């Protein structure tokens, strides 16, 4: 083993760092796991009937049951479809408007004040209007999600384009880049880190707004499971739907991070994972 030839201090330092690397996430899991196990035991011991706060085993059973009948998949797919369409629309509009307003001061002066004023309205307040305009079916829901996604993306892209370093752009000009080549070789890579951050906050809002949208009356979707669970007094179904939200939300966020990571290895970040190569 090559370790044998290394100084004696090396292995001990390594093991210490790996301990702190694995130690901290495990530490974070301790509290929720402890609570879950504790609650489970409390219900089994008969200290509580667990009717309003179902123990983990009941939640798991509900989750498994919903998954077995295909209900869970159907509702999750409906919700995911709404988020994906709303996110897509919000991202496209937000990116285009953000890029234009970031690039042109004239356009920024012209439309940014109006958009900022609209942003001051809590987006849920639009719901009655969207329902009047677009009906109670998919269109109003997707629109609400798109509005939620739009603002963080728009703001993020505008700020990113505005803050592209003039000196770096000048390097592009000195190499006679213009138009599309300038965008591809200088502007796009320069705004990418901020863009990914904007997409992630947009996605987060998208997941928040889909719940609001599905509360307003839906015949399917994870939000429907929540409302249904409340009306029929099935707390385990509510928690199962919440767990499904958390899982799918996290997975979609991971997708963005995973897809973008190879393009962002250059970033000079504090504790960037790429800094170890």
């Amino acid at each position, binding site marked *: 083993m090559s370790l044998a030839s290394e100084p004696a201090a090396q292995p001990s330092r390594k093991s210490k760092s790996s301990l702190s690397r694995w130690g901290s996430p495990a530490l974070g899991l301790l509290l929720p796991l402890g609570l879950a196990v504790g609650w489970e035991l409390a219900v089994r011991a008969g200290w509580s009937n667990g009717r309003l706060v179902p123990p983990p085993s009941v939640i798991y059973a509900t989750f498994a049951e919903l998954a077995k009948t295909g209900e869970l998949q159907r509702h999750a797919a409906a919700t995911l479809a709404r988020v994906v369409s709303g996110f897509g629309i919000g991202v496209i509009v937000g990116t285009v408007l953000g890029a234009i307003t970031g690039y042109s001061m004239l356009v920024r002066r012209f439309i940014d004040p109006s958009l900022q004023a609209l942003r001051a309205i809590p987006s849920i307040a639009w719901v009655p209007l969207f329902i009047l305009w677009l009906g109670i079916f998919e269109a109003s829901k997707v629109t609400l999600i798109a509005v939620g996604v739009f603002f963080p993306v728009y703001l993020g892209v505008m700020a990113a384009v505005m803050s592209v370093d003039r*000196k*770096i752009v*000048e*390097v592009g*000009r*000195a*190499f*006679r880049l213009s138009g599309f080549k300038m965008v591809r*070789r*200088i502007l796009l*890579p*320069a705004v*990418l880190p901020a863009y990914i951050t904007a997409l992630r906050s947009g996605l987060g809002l998208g997941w928040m707004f889909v719940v609001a949208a599905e509360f307003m009356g839906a015949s399917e979707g994870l939000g429907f499971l929540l409302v249904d669970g409340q009306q029929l007094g099935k707390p385990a179904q509510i928690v199962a739907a919440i767990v499904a939200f958390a899982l799918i939300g996290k997975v979609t966020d991971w997708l963005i991070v995973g897809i973008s990571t190879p*393009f962002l*290895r*250059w*970033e*000079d970040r504090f504790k960037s994972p790429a800094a170890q190569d």
Partner: protein
Amino acid sequence: MLTLEHVGKTYSNGVHALADINFSVGPGEIVAIVGGSGCGKSTLLRAISGLDTPSTGRVVLDGEAVMQPHEKIGIIFQEPRLLPWLSVAGNVGFGLEDRPKAERDARVAEALTRVGLSDKAGVWPRELSGGQAQRVAIARALVPRPEVLLLDEPFSALDAFTRVDLQDHLLSLWADTKPTLILVTHDVDEAVVLADRIMVMKPRPGRIFDEIQADLPRPRDRQSSAFDRVRRHVMAALDRSLSRSGHNSNAETDPSGAALWW
């Protein structure tokens, strides 16, 4: 041949930065431009590079007016300005996009060897020291083989040892293809070490005040008396360029006052 014909620049805020600059620089010549802060050196260099256009007059390269950045003109800024999302090799090859990959790789590798950074080809710019980053910037500007290379105080942010090291690097790179070099500096020693000819500028509006030949043999010995003579000459000219009227009585004999010029 690079020629400046009556080049003047007035910025849109009314600052009259340059007035009637005329000079020619031959192929392979090294010209240093020195002058007080704010006397228009950067403005002049940007006008030559085509990044800015002069308000009057024109810059002519080989009979062709320079109106925008030109493929025969390279520029090195005070900061390295490397693109953080490209590796060192990617930065050096930035100006060779349109060449076949094999040629690009070969020229990048050669340039990196010449600046002593072939072992850094794959690393990100964030991992370089200031001197290494500026060497990459030099390689990037030279790799497309420009006829004219412009340098705006390229070494002023570096410590004295690194600066001398990079001056040597620059000279050895210059010797490969002998482009025209126009170097703005506020380091008189740097000007005398590198240049064949030293232009002293005078501020408000910026114009050429004096022109000093530095025809010393190369490589130049910073300790020699001939070197010192040219340096004193340049410093005296700088002092005079900054005195408002004709009061230049002791500037010629007292070069120590010149230390205050920038």
